[in-house]
């Protein structure tokens, strides 16, 4: 069986296309690369969707935290505290069992007990809280002069937010936000190790890496493969975020542009 056959059989295994049974013996390097790579589909799916949706909520939360209205401010504070103060692992478990008991009463919540939606909701809220805090910090450090200039031009309300506050906030937050994006991609590996079941063994990259490590009793092949995939993924994320960073900073003189500095990988 050539490697191409294996790729054809298992390349999309993680989404349920191809061979039904996972390989049980005679694991080749090709098997491991293909299946773990196939699992990456889920990591990328969770990462990208949570990042995009979380971005908007994060902006709202940051603005809420800076709001003069006590109710909105407190609500944002608590939202951030709950999601940043507790382990993501426990959040996954709690959400899964919450959806499970809601399902018993209302059928609508049935879909949420599947990882593709339920875990996505948790990741969405989680990243919104972490990025919300980052955006809030950036909001506080918007140069006073920028706001005064906006006032002088008669910009208020929505126009001021869209043209001055928001772009400046994003520009200041971007290096930290890049790190958050990387954490988020790493955090996606937790999904199938928490409450959410990998139905029909459709799991993510770590799920398959763990499968191989369990079957072969040799962790020295699947985990480095997983690490390799993640390093590539992180490099791609860094490149894309670097381009955005460039665009956000394009109006500044060369030397004062914020450089991206990466502090990789902490667990949340």
């Amino acid at each position, binding site marked *: 069986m050539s490697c191409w056959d294996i790729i054809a059989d298992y390349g999309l295994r993680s989404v349920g296309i191809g061979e039904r049974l996972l390989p049980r013996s005679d694991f080749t390097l090709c098997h491991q690369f293909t299946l773990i790579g196939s699992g990456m589909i889920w990591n990328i799916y969770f990462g990208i969707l949570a990042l995009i949706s979380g971005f908007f909520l994060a902006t709202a939360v940051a603005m809420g935290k800076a709001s003069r209205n006590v109710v909105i401010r407190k609500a944002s504070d608590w939202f951030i505290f709950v999601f940043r103060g507790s*382990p993501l692992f426990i959040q996954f478990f*709690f959400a899964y069992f919450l959806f499970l008991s809601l399902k018993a009463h209302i059928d609508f919540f049935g879909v949420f007990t599947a990882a593709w939606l339920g875990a996505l909701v948790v990741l969405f809220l989680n990243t919104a809280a972490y990025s919300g805090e980052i955006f809030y910090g950036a909001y506080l450090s918007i140069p006073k002069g920028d706001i005064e200039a906006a006032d002088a031009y008669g910009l208020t309300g929505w126009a001021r937010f869209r043209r001055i506050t928001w772009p400046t906030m994003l520009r200041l937050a971007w290096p930290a936000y890049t790190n958050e994006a990387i954490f988020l991609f790493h955090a996606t590996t937790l999904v199938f190790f928490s409450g959410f079941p990998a139905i029909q063994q459709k799991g993510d990259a770590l799920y398959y890496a763990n499968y191989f490590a369990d*079957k072969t009793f040799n962790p020295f092949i699947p985990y480095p493969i*997983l*690490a390799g995939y993640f390093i590539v993924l992180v490099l791609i994320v860094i490149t894309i975020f670097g381009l955005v960073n460039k665009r956000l900073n394009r109006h500044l003189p060369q030397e004062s542009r914020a450089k991206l500095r990466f502090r990789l990988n902490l*667990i949340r």
Partner: protein
Amino acid sequence: MFDFCTNPDTLGDFQWMLCYLTTGKHMGLYISFGTVLLLLAITAPTALLFGFGGAVAARSRFFVISVFGRGYISVVRGVPDIAFFLFFVIALDQGLEFIRHKIKCPDWTDAIWQGNDFVVCQAAKLPLGTSPQWIHEVYGFALAVLTFAIVFGAFAANVLYGAMTAVPKAQIETAAAYGMSRRQTFWRIIVPQMWVYALPGLGNLWMVLIKATPLLFLLGIEDIVYWARELGGTKTSRFTDYPHGDWRMWYFLMLLVFYLGFTKLSELVLDRVMARLTFGQATAGGEAQRKANA
């Protein structure tokens, strides 16, 4: 636990709950909170030690040691975290057994990795197949602590390395002017002063460490996550005196609250310590403190 618990079916709601929450299995849950705290209490200093070693190694003038220190820091920090936990537990276990195998059974001729099996002689098994259950548990716990210490040691090494370089140059030059050797400068000037620069980073790390403790579950320890799943599941009256539906949601809610409380408490304590360490330092924080008191 209580005398009136002998026949739970006849009890009122409050007493039933009281009895339910004090069953033997729940004691297991409460003890597992202790396990988590114990893990934190052991891991934090061990990781700090690893971190200190890593930072000193990375600063070393010997190229090989320096490369080793830097490598340790960047490799562990560059790879997804859970993968590391899953990897290290097996890798450490096999590594230890491999070394013991080489020492204890030098005459062994078969390959150790036979296809999908990892085979060592009986005498090299860790823990020995004949040892009692508690040794197995302690061994598992020790592996978990070591894994945590290695991973968090790399993070701590990075923080401490940064803190060591953050000590003002003038201080080190003054030490040199007084004729202190490199070693003396390190122990008398850099180490006492670096903590104030390291504390924000270490505090952060502590928070992260707290939040990483549920991963113990993945390492096969009977921790709070294990018990919450175990106790929360639906119980019928055939197996227990206290039948109930699926309560796992409530158990995990309790864990959530536990962690929130714990992080909040840590935050308060860290703020205190930071205020204490900043006192009298030539930093913006120390200056602000001085002005506030004046």
